């Protein structure tokens, strides 16, 4: 009888992780966590940042050694020591931050570490052939001989998935796969995911985006504080119930009340702004009132980021005017822009935003150093006060101002960077994907901060690929299409469908 | 792009402007290819400047800087031969390579005159058009030894009254023949004049002032007053030794606190130290005389005459070497 039961389990679950515990000094990262993946299903793994999702995955891949618990793959107890071993056994991970060698070709990236070879001599035709085969299976149209750096982010992601497939993976883990994709590409990704599913793979889908999860996933497991909370069929869930499970309390509203008042005066005017080096923006016109939040939407490649970078002087302008508070400015370099009263929150926080190995104080004051110096010498007391102000004002969760910023969660890092700009007292905030990779609770706080800034009469431009977010916090939305403005509309006139329609205007 | 094009033009102009009075000179004038082991050596640059002055308007000189590397010098000799020079004057970097160089000259039938650094006799004799102009490497050591011996005998330098001369040696390079000869012959000469010696330390300092200074510092702290002489292969190192001694309170004019330092080269800095009484003596290698000899012998060779035809120079016993004598320098003349 018992044996029979076990067989049934085997059929039911491709991957089983049971009673997994892992303790780090002082923290219980995983506490009897559980995850069961059925064959041919997409399983969402959800939880706020720090809930233990990535620790659980690292235990699966052998990056961490679990303290207790068992992992079964196809009914067999397994324990991997390295990600490579996992890969060879059909368990693959598509990383959130793509781990690829951008100077090498697509095919090289797929076969790296296991080139088909004869006594160390690589057989060129063979692995190109094999790559094309995998691409064909997945319906991808990518040239295997092209350098990785030439591909778009979404194509790079597809290559990473193709790599997992080429290992004959049974279990594919997708970590935040859509965080850098626009709706169009998300659709493409979903097609591929469905193909994998039909081929009998089990897919673990880690994401913060509720809408996607409800669309693509069959089951949802929610974790909180290192513990398993619940596993439900996706069809039984709504966004609100998931959030409730994740946060452990009822979140009545995902977006704060819009309390900002729009003044009649313009803080910023942009006229005929055109970039110099492609891909660039073309003839962009808009104005921004004091106290207004302007959203910028568009597909990946619509040059939303380039718009901000051109205004801020990172990308070179060829023509156009920028007028802040009635004053014409040129903004040739970021430094000039900062002096003129602009602030830019960059899209890739870890790459362009933070100084990971340095403390919160340094990260807070780096843009406004001059204020804390006397004859070029930094006054420590002043800087510490400034950092404290940032921590209090933005509610940064950290043991002290001397903590290294890379040890904070994404949301708290983002708050410190916002604080950095606040210390500079700018007039116009340019925010590029301000909530990317941040969990629900922290997102709310960031939204609140944005609205508070607007209430103080600042002008704010938010670029985001999450349309609900833009519709939730903005006053107007500018839709970019192929480097041009496809339309600027008050939020009340817009819907996701309408935005999508505008996004395609110049393609 | 504009910046790049601008820099390209800048460098081209620099190149054009920088190559000497090429091709302007009368083509009938003989051309001498001259290779120095290193441009920025004090003594060698004296020779070079004197030679340039001597040759001005009369002979075309193609000067080359070996940068202290024999490989580079080999390349330069290939090039000079390719430029059809009438004679080669070579201050070789590594005398071991002399045979290779002689073979190159021989196969192109170009007369070759080595100077300053002396190749082995049999190498010179392997080619009828090879000669050497220079000092006798051991002479510098012998003269230095004489200065030491005279000083020792003239006054009471035996600080510990044991009748033995305690010294430290600053050597140029481990395998440089000049350095080897000077190191060996200076002490040998002292011994031959009937003085017993004891070497407290020897350090290879690559002819370098700073290294010599550090080595001397260490010796002072170890031996203190036991050191009676500092013998240096060149003045640069002697200068370093004096700097270290002065920092430790020696050689500042107090006769009780004095360590005798001797060098070779008679550089201006050394002459100055000697005139102030901080340094005992040095050996003068006459750069002017060397340049003069090189010029006359070189022009003879280039014009197809015998090397020492119509000059006052004579070969020594080898029959292929012309010697420029060393002179002691202790500030008296």
């Amino acid at each position, binding site marked *: 009888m018992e044996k029979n039961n076990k067989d049934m389990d085997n059929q039911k679950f491709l991957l089983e992780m049971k009673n997994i515990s892992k303790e780090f000094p002082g923290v219980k990262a995983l506490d009897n966590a559980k995850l069961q993946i059925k064959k041919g299903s997409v399983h969402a793994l959800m939880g706020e940042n720090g809930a233990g999702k990535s620790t659980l995955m690292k235990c699966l891949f052998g990056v961490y050694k679990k303290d207790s618990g068992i992992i079964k793959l196809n009914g067999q107890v397994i324990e991997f020591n390295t990600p490579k071993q996992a890969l060879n056994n059909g368990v693959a991970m598509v990383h959130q931050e793509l781990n690829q060698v951008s100077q090498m070709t697509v095919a090289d990236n797929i076969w790296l570490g296991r080139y088909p070879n004869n006594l160390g001599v690589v057989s060129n035709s063979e692995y190109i052939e094999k790559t094309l085969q995998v691409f064909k299976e997945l319906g991808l149209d990518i040239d295997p001989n092209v350098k990785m750096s030439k591909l778009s982010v979404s194509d790079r992601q597809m290559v990473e998935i193709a790599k997992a497939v080429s290992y004959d993976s049974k279990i594919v883990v997708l970590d935040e796969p859509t965080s850098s994709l626009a709706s169009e590409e998300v659709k493409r990704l979903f097609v591929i995911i469905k193909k994998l599913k039909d081929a009998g793979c089990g897919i673990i889908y880690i994401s913060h985006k509720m809408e996607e999860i409800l669309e693509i996933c069959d089951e949802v497991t929610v974790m909180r504080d290192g513990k398993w909370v619940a596993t439900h069929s996706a069809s039984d869930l709504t966004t609100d119930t998931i959030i409730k499970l994740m946060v452990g309390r009822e979140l009545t509203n995902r977006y704060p009340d819009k309390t900002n008042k729009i003044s009649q005066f313009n803080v910023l005017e942009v006229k005929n702004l055109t970039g110099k080096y492609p891909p660039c923006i073309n003839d962009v016109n808009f104005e921004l009132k004091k106290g207004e939040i302007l959203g910028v939407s568009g597909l990946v490649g619509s040059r939303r980021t380039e718009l901000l970078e051109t205004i801020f002087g990172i990308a070179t302008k060829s023509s156009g005017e920028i007028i802040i508070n009635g004053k014409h400015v040129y903004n040739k370099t970021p430094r000039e822009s900062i002096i003129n009263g602009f602030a830019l929150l960059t899209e890739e926080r870890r790459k362009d935003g933070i100084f990971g190995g340095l403390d919160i104080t340094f990260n807070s004051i780096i843009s406004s150093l001059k204020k804390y110096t006397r004859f070029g010498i930094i006054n420590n007391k002043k800087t510490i006060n400034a950092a404290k102000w940032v921590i209090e004002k933005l509610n940064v969760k950290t043991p002290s101002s001397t903590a290294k910023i890379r040890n904070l969660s994404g949301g708290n890092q983002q708050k410190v960077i916002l604080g950095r700009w606040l210390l500079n007292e700018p007039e116009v905030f340019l925010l590029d994907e301000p909530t990317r990779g941040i969990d629900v609770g922290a997102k709310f706080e960031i939204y609140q901060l944005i609205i508070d800034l607007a209430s103080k009469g600042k002008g704010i431009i938010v670029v985001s690929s999450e349309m609900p977010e833009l519709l939730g916090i903005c006053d107007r939305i500018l839709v970019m299409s192929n480097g041009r403005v496809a339309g600027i509309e008050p939020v009340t006139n817009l819907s996701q469908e309408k935005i999508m329609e505008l996004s395609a205007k110049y393609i | 792009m504009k910046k790049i094009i601008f820099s390209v033009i800048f460098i081209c102009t620099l190149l054009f402007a920088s190559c000497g009075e090429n091709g302007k000179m009368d083509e009938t004038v003989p051309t001498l290819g001259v290779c120095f082991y290193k441009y920025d050596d004090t003594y060698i640059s004296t020779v070079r400047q004197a030679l340039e002055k001597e040759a001005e308007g009369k002979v075309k000189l193609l000067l080359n800087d070996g940068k202290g590397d024999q490989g580079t010098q080999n390349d330069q000799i290939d090039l000079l031969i390719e430029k059809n020079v009438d004679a080669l004057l070579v201050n070789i970097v*590594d005398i071991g390579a002399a045979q290779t160089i002689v073979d190159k000259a021989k196969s192109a039938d170009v007369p070759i005159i080595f100077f300053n650094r002396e190749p082995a006799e049999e190498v010179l004799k392997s080619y009828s058009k090879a000669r050497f102009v220079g000092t006798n490497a051991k002479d510098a050591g012998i003269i230095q030894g004489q200065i030491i011996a005279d000083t020792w005998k003239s006054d009471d330098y035996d600080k510990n009254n044991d009748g033995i001369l305690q010294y430290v040696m600053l050597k140029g390079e481990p395998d440089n023949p000049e350095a080897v000869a000077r190191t060996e012959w200076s002490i040998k000469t002292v011994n031959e004049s009937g003085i017993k010696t004891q070497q407290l330390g020897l350090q290879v300092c690559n002819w370098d002032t700073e290294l010599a200074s550090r080595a001397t510092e260490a010796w002072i702290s170890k031996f203190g007053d036991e050191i009676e002489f500092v013998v240096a292969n060149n003045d640069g190192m002697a200068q370093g030794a004096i700097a270290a001694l002065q920092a430790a309170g020696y050689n500042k004019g107090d006769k009780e606190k004095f360590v005798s330092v001797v060098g070779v080269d008679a550089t201006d800095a050394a002459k100055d130290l000697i005139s102030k009484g901080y340094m005992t003596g040095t050996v003068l290698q006459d750069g002017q005389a060397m340049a003069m000899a090189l010029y006359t012998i070189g022009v003879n060779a280039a014009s197809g005459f015998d090397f020492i035809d119509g000059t006052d120079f004579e070969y020594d016993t080898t029959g292929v070497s012309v010697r420029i004598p060393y002179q002691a320098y202790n500030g008296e003349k």
Partner: protein
Amino acid sequence: MIKNKKLSQILLDYSLYIVLGILILIVIIKDPSFISLKNITNILSQASTRGILALGVAGLIVLQGTDLSAGRILGLTAIVSASLLQSTTYASRMYANLPQLPIIIPMLVAVIIGGIFGLINGFGVAKLKLHAFIVTLGTQLIAYGVSCIYIDRPPLGAQPIANLDDRYVRFVTGSLKFGAFEFPYLILYLAIVSVIMWFVWNKTVLGRNMFAIGGNPEAAAVSGVKLSTNIIIIFLISGILYGLAGFLEAGRVGSATSNSGINYELDAISACVVGGVSFSGGVGTIPGVLIGTVILQFINYGLNFIGVSPYLQYIIKGLIIILAVSIDVRKYIEKR
């Protein structure tokens, strides 16, 4: 506009060749007698040992490393191979009783010594996790120390190791003769080494792994590439090349001293960067390294040929290195 862009693209893609072309042009304008086959073979054969050295260093730069020990390792291997191949009739030989050895034996000894130093460097980088700069800074001194000890021994004491065996000298400096035209063996050796290295870089798993590790070590590790093994092998290969270069250099120069090879590593590194090997790792080609070596050698030779003062030569060489690299990096800098 589009046409214009293409032109500047072409200029960038072939920038190295254009730089070389301009240099040649200037030299020819200044002194037309430069146009001769002999000058070309001179430059190429002079570039030979330096090129082999640069090919060794290039792999390490691709790995985001560098090598300060290349010159001293070359020096040590030059000394050892010279000492084993002194003419048997020469009185003050280092090994007075050594019979005449087949040339291959000293060559192997040099290669093995170079390889051992390469392994030490590789071990330091791969296992001790030191930056290549630090490890090779250390081994550079070690190699020099070993050279001095080796050369300064009784009964002869320190002296240049000269009077090399005729066979050895001919093996290195001889040439194939086609009528009046002579093709130096040295160029041939460089060509052989280049072809082998090209094969290793482009056709083997090791080569691919090298680019992957240099381009993104984490990605390589996640893909199951054994970082330490691959790094050590690349260092080993570089050491072997230094050994070979040392063997050839002693024969070429005709002698070896404790000073041999000093600062050669800087020339090798310059040749690599001029040839487009990126210090940020993962980028570089064998033809690039070769053209870089030839450009540098051409500067040495050409500037001497037209009689530029040696002091100015340093300045011009410095400027050209900076210029060549700044043009080359434009290929990789995204204009924004």
